[in-house]
């Protein structure tokens, strides 16, 4: 069976799985053999994502943030300072994208969502909020690869960086755009596993 016929759209997450384990990929994305699990950390992450986005959009969040507990409120106060410092450079948040790619005369698509986009001078900064820990090898992380590759297609520039920011620790790490072809090769090679 040509799996590409069934699955032609990939996210950074699904590519990660495909890169590591073809079987796991098939089970999850083709046969849907997985059980939805909701954990507290993901919930908290989602809460902050929504709160940040509402704040960045300029909504009055003083009421909704009351849902947070004391500890979370502290985190939010600190986070808000950072967001405020950078406010003028904010462009948009929760931006979904769809990119069409060629591979041996066939198409596949990359999809994902930027948590927030900032622009400092000419440089686009793609923010990704992490609840606690930052990626260990961010430059090598498939999320960086896919996001930077796509951002390049979207903004038509190589002056892009990806910034992972830990909500709880407030530290961050940046990955600078390197090379389209390297990104493309890595992604193509993963997808070739399905051919």
């Amino acid at each position, binding site marked *: 069976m040509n799996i590409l016929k069934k699955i032609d759209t990939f996210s950074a997450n699904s590519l990660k799985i495909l890169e590591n384990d073809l079987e796991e990929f098939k089970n999850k994305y083709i046969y849907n053999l*997985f059980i939805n699990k909701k954990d507290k950390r993901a919930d908290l992450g989602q809460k902050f994502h929504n709160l940040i986005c*509402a704040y960045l*959009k300029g909504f*009055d969040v003083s*009421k909704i943030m009351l849902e947070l507990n004391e500890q979370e409120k502290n985190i939010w106060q600190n986070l808000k300072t950072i967001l405020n410092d950078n406010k003028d450079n904010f462009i948009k948040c929760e931006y*979904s994208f*769809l990119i069409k790619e060629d591979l041996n005369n066939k198409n596949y698509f990359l999809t994902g969502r930027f948590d927030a986009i900032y622009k400092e001078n000419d440089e686009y900064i793609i923010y990704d909020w992490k609840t606690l820990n930052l990626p260990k090898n961010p430059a090598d992380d498939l999320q960086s690869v896919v996001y930077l590759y*796509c951002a390049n297609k979207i903004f038509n520039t190589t002056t892009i960086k990806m910034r992972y920011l830990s909500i709880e620790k407030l530290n961050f790490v940046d990955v600078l755009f390197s090379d389209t072809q390297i990104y493309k090769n890595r992604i193509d090679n993963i997808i070739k596993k399905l051919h």
Partner: protein
Amino acid sequence: MIINAASNTNRTDILINEYLKLLNKGIEAENILVIVQNSKKKKEFIEKIKKYSKTGNIGCLKIFSFYGLAYNYILENWALVENSIQDDINRKISPNLCGMEVSQYIFKECIKEIDFSGYNSKTSLLHQLLRRNSLINLNNLSKEELKKRVDILNESYSQEANQAINKYKLKTIEKRAFDYIRQLNIFEFLYKKTKNSFEYVFLDDADEITPAVVAFLEEIKPTVKEFFIGYDKQGSSRLGYLGAINIDFEKFLNEKEQIIISNEEKFKNAQNILNSIRKNEEIGLDNITSKTFLKRNEMIDEVLSDIKILINNGIKPSEISIITPISDEFLKTSLLKSGFEFNFLTKNEKLNQNKLIGYILELLKIINDTQNKDISPYILKGIFIELLNLDKKETLKLIQEYKLKRDFKGSNIFDFIKNKNFSAFIKLIEIYEEIRFEKLSTQLYEIIKNFIKLEKEISKDIYKINQLLKQIYGFEEVFNDEVSNLELINQLENTIISENPLSDEEIDENSIVVSSAQKIIDYSHKTKYQFLLDVNNENWLKQDIGPLYNAWVMQKSWNKDSFELEDNIELTKDRTARTLYKLYLLGDEITLYSSAYDSLGMENFSGIDKYFKFKNEIKTKEQKPITPRKDQEEVLNYKGGLMSVSATAGSGKTTIMLLLVDKILSGEILDGVESKNIFVLTFMESAARNFKERIKAKYPDLKELPNISTIHGLALRIIKENNNYSRLGLDFDFEIIDEIKRTSILNEIIYSLGIQSDKIDLYDSAISTYKNELANYGEFDCQNRLFLNVFNAYQNKLKEQNLIDYDDLLLLSLKLLKENPDILEYYQNIVKIIIEDEAQDSSFIQQNLISLLGGKYKNIIRCGDINQAITSTFTNSDVKGFREFMKNSKNVVMDRCQRCSTGVLDCANNTVKWSNKEKYEAFSDLIMKPVDGVNLVDKNSVKLELFKEEKEETNFIINEIKKILKNDPKATFGVLLRSNFAINKWDKIFKENSIKTYKNSDSLINNPVYRICLLILEFISNPYELKITKEIAQELFEFGYYDYDAVKYANNLSEPIFLKEDFEEQFYWDMNYFLFKNHYSIYDLVYEIGAFYFSNSIHKDNISLVATIAQKISLTQKTFENTISKLREIQFKNNFSNIKFFATNDNSKKNAAVQIMTLHKSKGDEFDYVFIPELSQDNLCFNIEKYKLKENSKFIQKMKKYPKTEEELKKEIIEENYRLIYVGITRAKKYLYLSCANNYKYFGKMRETNESEIFEGLGEYIEKN
């Protein structure tokens, strides 16, 4: 841009092309809004954009269904909503955009606080309110608009309904929990508050949009640069029904539309369908054909065989669709059994109908309620085998042990398994300890993680498990700890998956789609072959009206000041026209399938078949021509008007009535009379079915059969058709109370009033009498206060539970006709001729109905035989009415009896003479005459036999039968008895003497499907009891399924069959198969048993009836085991839930020489030899002096406006006794034996009794012969 084009054009492609042009111009996708009809259309739209767009960045697509748009918009702008809500306590960073299961739960809680006193449908109140709420919102009705509609509909509960809806709304705000309808409110609030960012708007299927969408479009219109709209001007199938509204888009945009037509001929045909239905004309098209059947299983079999032919010819499954409004268990099970793949788009499936989910939920129940001592062993077996993967034999041993322990000590299941050394148990206990206090979602997740292997084979189950989990997460988010795990499981079990429109539906290419018409249209699902099923069922035209809502009037566009029957009919017709127009465009070859009966054996009526005509429609099957006798000929010379036919027993009345209907159908008698204008009323359901079968056999291709039913069937149609029930204040899901339910309600009432429990039957008939009296004479004062208390309590109970009884059926239909001139006119126009059988048994109300219905054309034929009126003393039948009718109509007499031998004939005529001599008015003066050369001539064919002892009488009969059988092995015998309870006694006696019998009774257990399914169920629930296993072998041997070896094998068993390893024994395999086939649903289990043992068409229909009975009972019982006990408990009842079995040609009936039944039941039957034993004075008295009136008979008189005196009553009863024996006598073709003994055993004691006067009365004449 406006494109007016039907769904079979490339309309959507044109829109997509425009969309891509915009992208190519550099417009950002996030500034282009696309609104499509549903998530499937959304997917298709996106796929096409993906396909045709250039490589590189496509952008941030904003393609939504309207609900999806609302959903996303709320999430993105939630803070604005939260800031406008007053309360500070429940604030949320993001709202709970929940599914219907959550909002249904909230609504349920709100209703509890509001008093809908007197509202008759507690069961569907929730549904009613949800529907009302959704109509108000989809139509964007303002308070004033709603008020206007409340007035038009003269609604009784609008205040309560509004109160409930308001409460619900407040509660959803408090919980920040909004389902898709509620989201529309929030969305409206938001888009009015925010700036529109969409420069371009695409709208496909724009004829399906609701006023809620229109309001949004109006709001953003000033800021939108360009609209692109695709629609079909002919209108949507949802128009005026599910909230869709007709919009003049040319006016809306001030722009000319483009019209696109592809496949001109098809489009023209589709338009012809639309127009002809609107004009009430029939249409015939080459690519629409029809197939009609009597029973639904025959219809489904044919569908499957047609599918097989297509697939064998290389047609792909995806090119076929099955379209029906009735996607019930029977259809599903029958289709799935066929081996083809089906995809049911109409998912009215409850979660626990999935076996795996069912067992998982059961395990969760056990985990959350360890104190439950009532765990069903059957369920436990399923959990052990299906979830814990335990060995099957081991499981059964464990279950037996558990049962014993539980019965003695009430053992806790976890205590029980603790001591068992099975790894699965150890694991379960470990996990149980870990999760017992966790949330339900955690518990569920852990169970799946630990016990379910995620494999491809169960991917569909896993999809459903994820849906379940999603629901639970939703619940837990909204309610936190307010709802206990057990409560939550209960709510989930009863939630229907499909309610949420955002849920995705996959259409698999290798399967045949089964769907409602609406879904096919929603999905624009094109297939080469469309099979339209159940086309003569009213559900095709089902209107959406209830006591708390009216889908027509609650449309935004409703502008009339009233709502009449005519509106309902016209609007329904118009919607049907649009639906069929749209369906036609989506198919190439269309076949309409219909069956006279639905899967519950109820008559279908009033479907869409009436709009189509077909070539060579009426073909008659060559049948042996019948030459009517002279006395019969006159009936056939009928030319219209009132006619009464007095037909004696054995005069061939049914045959002549068939010929008459035949003649009417051929148009020889009356002009302009079609099938639908002919109404035949029979006394018994079985007679109606029989009549239909015979017409069907003669006209196999007749599109529509004449209306042949009992008066109750006709009454039900009048109440149901065109939503007439709403005029009676009834809810659409009203049910007719059955015997079992009625008994239980009466029991409760009688107990609470301190009346003796053995009085139930008495009160039962008193209620019926009183109701009929009320109908005849209007309100009057009943003298018996206690009875009135019972009566009122009973009526209240019915009302509370949305039930009506059999008497109500007639009363209410009469009421409808009398009080609503429009309804009366509707039926009077249809009923061009009405033929009534057994007119002597007709009740006052029935006669009233007949004269009303036939009131316009006045072609009424009533057939009967006053001499055979044998129901007047215990039903409401009114023979006087027939006598009256005979006087006022042309009377035809069929006095030739070709059945009975001359001696028997004389005996019957002598009974009349004897009665006259005794000065009774039991009979008419009709004297039966033989037909020359037909009747057996034997003057000595009647024997009167008297015995001293009971034993002598039985011996005589047995010897006589044996003797006759020796010379005439094919002879048939009828043993006719006075009462039901004697049947079993005689059955036993014959069995002891190796004479095969057939008990002719309507009891459930008399049906072989019921009997055998019940036995196997009992075996499954108790395989340890060898007696049951043995009984099964014996029963199935007698039925002809197994040979005698199976009986021998079963009889030799010394331990339960599952412990054996007798691999050569078929019986062994079959029993173990059922034992280990764990079906969560009892419907599936019964269906499987039935389909295994029964293959002929009649039985197959009864399988679905038995399965339905079992399923209905299971809803009221806690456990599988209780359900089975209940099935056994009701075995002697005549029906359950008014489900009537199809007559069987049961093998045991065919093989039996002797049929045993009551005298009453024998009417219509005939036998070579007839025995009427036990003719004592107690059983059949003819002497008014000696007759002792029963207290019960006196009691019933008190319910009458004009009670009879005791003398009158006695006389009536004795007269009926005359007719009863007359009926018995006239069953005999050759010989008749009347007998009696002087000593009978009653309840274990010998009692002396006198023989009935009949021996003297008739003896006189017989001696003379």
